[in-house]
């Protein structure tokens, strides 16, 4: 609260100059205040996932006696390893919705002129908004997933111990830290892969005078349709599809091998560190083209915010 106390020089110097301000930090906090879905939606989903998984584990406990040890451990671990998926899916969904409103909402409610009366540049504002899908939401997803997994693991431990068995194999089966690495890697790959989508949505939200949803969706669909009708090709449509599903293909060995039909023993799950393929991901032109496109979109969004009038 008290800048003067923290910066005693201020009270002596003639102009009360430049208390250390942190526009980027506060701009991000402002986004989190304004868009409560950033925190609330993943929290609610995490609570539901936790509740469902806990029920499943407890119901399981009543059947425990009949299961042999290996099956018992495996069935306790199952909800544990599924739990992060819906949380991550939610944060990506929230990210799409957020981006589409990020620069449109402040023009619609005309608060943009208030924000512009403060010394926060358009670039800082747009970068703070871009940080929500690119950094804040992924961090929330990871933090919540870890919390949910730890709670489930503790519950599983109690259930197993309640049946007089050692929890040690359970912890081995769960492979908590390995799962964490896969989770962080997979989410990171998706964030980078989806960056151009976030960029495009934010560009539209800075530009559209109304109905940003339509402006975001219709032009890509129209281009696909025109290409299909005029040239009979599906190049653009394939590109869009690759953008949506490509992260899984490029980031993991299993997925790419399965796509070629050459993965022996793949069961559709990613549960081994050897399946991570960062070299392939970083070598994929689609990643870099996408990131360049995203950077261009954010740059245009900065210019648009500078020039556009409130709606």
């Amino acid at each position, binding site marked *: *609260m*008290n*800048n*003067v106390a923290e910066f005693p020089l201020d009270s002596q110097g003639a*102009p*009360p*100059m*430049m*208390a250390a*301000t*942190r*526009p980027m*930090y*506060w*701009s991000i*906090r*402002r986004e989190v*205040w*304004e868009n409560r879905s950033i925190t609330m939606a993943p929290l609610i989903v995490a609570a539901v996932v936790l509740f469902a998984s806990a029920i499943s584990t407890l119901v399981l406990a009543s059947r425990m006696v009949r299961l042999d040890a290996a099956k018992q451990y495996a069935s306790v671990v199952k909800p544990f390893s599924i739990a992060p998926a819906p949380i991550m899916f939610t944060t990506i969904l929230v990210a799409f919705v957020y981006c589409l409103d990020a620069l449109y909402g*402040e023009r619609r*409610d*005309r*608060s943009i*002129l*208030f924000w*512009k*009366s*403060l*010394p*926060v*540049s358009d670039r800082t504002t747009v970068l703070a908004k871009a940080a929500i899908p690119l950094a804040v939401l992924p961090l929330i997803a990871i933090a919540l997933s870890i919390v949910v997994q730890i709670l489930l693991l503790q519950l599983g431990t109690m259930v197993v111990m309640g049946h007089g068995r050692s929890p040690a194999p359970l912890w081995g089966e769960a492979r908590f830290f390995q799962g964490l690495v896969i989770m962080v890697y997979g989410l990171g790959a998706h964030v980078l892969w989806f960056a151009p989508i976030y960029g495009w949505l934010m560009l539209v939200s800075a530009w559209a005078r109304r109905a940003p949803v339509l402006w975001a969706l219709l032009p890509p669909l129209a281009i696909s349709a025109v290409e299909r009708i005029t040239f009979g090709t599906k190049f653009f449509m394939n590109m869009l599809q690759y953008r949506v599903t490509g992260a899984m293909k490029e980031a993991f060995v299993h997925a790419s091998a399965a796509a070629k039909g050459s993965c022996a023993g793949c069961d559709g799950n990613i549960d081994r560190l050897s399946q991570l393929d960062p070299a392939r991901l970083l070598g994929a032109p689609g990643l870099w083209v996408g990131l360049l496109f995203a950077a261009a979109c954010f740059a245009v969004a900065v210019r648009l915010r500078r*020039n556009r*009038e*409130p709606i």
Partner: protein
Amino acid sequence: MACIEAHGLRKTFGATVALDGIDLRVEEGRILGLIGPNGAGKSTALNAILGLTPYQGDLRVLGRDPWTERDQLVRDVAFIADVAVLPRWIRVSQVLDFLAGVHPRFDRAKAERFLARTSVKRTSKVRELSKGMVTQLHLALVMAIDARLLVLDEPTLGLDILVRKQFYDSLINDYFDRNRTIVVTTHQVEEIQDVLTDVMFINHGRIVFSASMEDFEARYAEVMVNPDQVAAAKALGPIYERQVFGRGIFLFDSADRQQLAALGEVRTPSIADLFVAVMGNQEGAAR
């Protein structure tokens, strides 16, 4: 030093000319009233001064080009407009946190002191406050910013007279000093006449009248003319004439005070009356 200096300031929206080559100079420490009908170009001029819109011509605000140097300029400028609304979702405590976090010249303790005089609660959201309270909040925020230029664009639109009066009282008593400059536009001209040091009329994107209040008071006189002296009054060349309760009220520019005193009761006209006279004559000349 001039706070605002413009030469040939021009702005067009397609075929519409919003600012038609404005020259103006506002010295530091002045309170300028910018008066004009709707669509005259007031808000466009203020937007150009605030660096919110690009323009043609030469414009310096506090020695800077507001469009290209907006990021530096905005530290020294504060702004309240009827259209620059506070976001409805924000809490009073949050907006205080935010300003303290981003504005190097914001004094939070000062803002808290101003707010303590109002009934605005820290925990309220803006959407829960009345329009008058939102204005009080905005004013408290702006007065706690140590800015050199304060721009007010219809700051009291839609507020009741008590709040309007308080608004200008606190502005003058608690905020204004000789190092600051205030530019204000409003339709309630009469209420700010005593506050202003300078007045400017703008119409069709041009400045049609500009004077300091001292000059204004020295130059213009209004006389309620006795019925038997109407002909004599007209002979002195009034710039405007109106009827109130059957008596003629004549407005004179640079007329001899002694001659006027012979015609009836002489007084300083209101800005509103001069505005009507100047605009009326302009429209007449245009036709």
